[in-house]
């Protein structure tokens, strides 16, 4: 006690006056920023659920063809659009996910720190910033002008959008796989391809799948790449490889610009369906991460 008494007293209390006030103001502003974001999100979700829930039924989701805009809300369904979205997104996933994973394997397992891998990694990040409508114009210029509109063309456009996202998320996951696993496998005499396929990729599979699902969720909600690649039709087209097709986002786009309330209500129903699909994909991605991801940041 004597020692302490000999020293000058240090004031450990909270700062006073303007310093305290400014600190509080800034903290309050940060919380306000979050609340400000909640308002539009809540507004959109509540409106979509309120207007869409009364429209959605099993026949709305499955029956077709999509009725004319003037038809009242209780007529017809979005079946062709639901089918088109599932077909085209699935095909895009089949095209883009394996290519993206292999691209990431090159970046992390083979490229390492060489200039080519650095270049590819950099431009893959840049490619995530290319507007989705450009992907649509690209596939239009390179494919549709020669082979016509089809679900396949739409899948190409969505695939171009997904590819860099899958590369980035897979690359991040591969980087987390400990080198000891690779070295252990090499020591047993395995070739690099075998190590990658049987040790590295399985070790990172949880993160890879969840990254791919988030890319699928992003692609499923995209309209712009589909406008010039699949066109918009009202009848169901189960053949994804030929003939014009339709999708939920394209259909919402058409209905949103329509003055008829029946069409608008069908638009809300389609919007709720689309949001539900995207949310389910996101939730599954989170569950996969929580359940299967062995290594995380």
């Amino acid at each position, binding site marked *: 006690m004597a020692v302490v008494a000999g020293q000058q007293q240090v004031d450990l209390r909270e700062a006073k006056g303007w310093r305290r006030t400014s600190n509080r103001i800034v903290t309050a502003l940060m919380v306000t*920023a979050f609340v*400000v974001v909640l308002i539009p999100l809540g507004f959109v979700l509540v409106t979509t659920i309120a207007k869409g829930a009364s429209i959605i039924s099993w026949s709305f989701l499955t029956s077709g063809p999509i009725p004319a805009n003037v038809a009242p809300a209780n007529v017809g369904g979005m079946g062709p659009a639901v089918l088109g979205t599932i077909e085209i997104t699935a095909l895009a996933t089949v095209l883009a996910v394996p290519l993206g994973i292999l691209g990431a394997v*090159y970046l992390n397992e083979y490229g390492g720190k060489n200039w080519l891998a650095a270049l590819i990694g950099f431009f893959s990040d840049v490619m995530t910033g290319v507007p989705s409508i450009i992907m649509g*114009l690209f596939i239009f210029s390179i494919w549709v002008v020669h082979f016509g509109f089809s679900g396949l063309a739409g899948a190409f456009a969505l695939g171009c959008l997904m590819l860099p996202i899958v590369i980035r998320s897979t690359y991040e996951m591969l980087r987390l796989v400990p080198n000891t696993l690779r070295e252990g496998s090499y020591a047993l005499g395995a070739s690099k391809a075998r190590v990658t396929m049987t040790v590295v990729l399985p070790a990172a599979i949880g993160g890879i799948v969840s990254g791919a699902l988030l890319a699928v969720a992003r692609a499923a909600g995209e309209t712009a790449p589909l*406008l010039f690649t699949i066109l918009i039709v009202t009848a169901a087209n189960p053949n994804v490889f030929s003939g014009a097709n339709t999708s939920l986002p394209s259909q919402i786009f058409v209905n949103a610009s329509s003055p008829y309330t029946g069409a608008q209500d069908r638009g809300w129903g389609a*919007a709720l369906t689309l949001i539900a699909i995207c949310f389910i994909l996101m939730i599954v991605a989170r569950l996969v991460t929580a359940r299967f991801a062995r290594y995380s940041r």
Partner: protein
Amino acid sequence: MSTVARADQATPAGSARALSERRPLGDRGFQVLALACGLLVLVILVLIAVSTTQQASSWFTTEGLKIFARTWDPATGQFGALSFIYGTAVTAIIALVMAVPVSIGIALLLTEVVPYRWSRPIVYVIDLLAVVPSVVWGLWGILVFAPWLQHIYTDIASGVNGIPILDNLFGQPVSGASFFTAGVILAFMITPIVTSLSREVIATVPAIDKEGAYALGATRWEMIRGAVWPHSQGGVVGAVLLGLGRAMGETIAAALVIGSSPTITSHLFAPGYDMPAVIANQFGESYGVFKAGLIGIGVLLFAFTIIINVIARGVVERSARRKRGA
């Protein structure tokens, strides 16, 4: 002993070259396949530039420098893209002015204020914002948000009537579907990406710097200004630039709420047009030079976003490297 000797023969010491030459065909094939997939990114980017420019060539050759003219009127064959470039700039700036302070605020809230168990639910909510598809924002924007904003715009316009500069910006004519509405919707859409990128940057600030600031008696705000901000400045600028790229390229929401009127005006509440929106809205009915013009606007948009993204990634990487070196 004999087994050891045989093993040694199979893998001669110090001869890595011999090892690589004995790699089985499948192993080398896999490497080539992976390399091809990596190169695909570069191939696609080059093909985008080449194929779209080719399709747009008739616009570039017939119009020449008039591609930057003010008038866009397919009926009279005038295809100047200036009003769309102007609209893209205006809506992107409105979006950034609103989204950046909010995003940085949330990023700081997540990294410096709330405890870890609270930060995850907040991140989930911000991610939900990113999962809502563009077209749903557009549907809500045009059917619910724009009619509501129109009343507010009308009130503001009558309030600023006659005041010099404000009247030019916020006065009549007003419309629910306008530059400003598009800017607000774009702000909602780019907030998640700017938030998550800024958060990643701010999270790299060394704990020792922050603790040092606190040990000197700094309040949280003083710590943020003194320790966090100098360290993360460069990265946050990169995040903002990436947000700008997103705002410029966002198509469908803008196409629905921007008002579809190719005009250059200082009135933010007036209907306008931007580059992606005009492509989306007019492509279906276009032909000949008209179609080439729309694809050409896409080429310009591609060039702008590539430049912005290259600068942004460069800024982020340089600041990350400098931080590691220091």
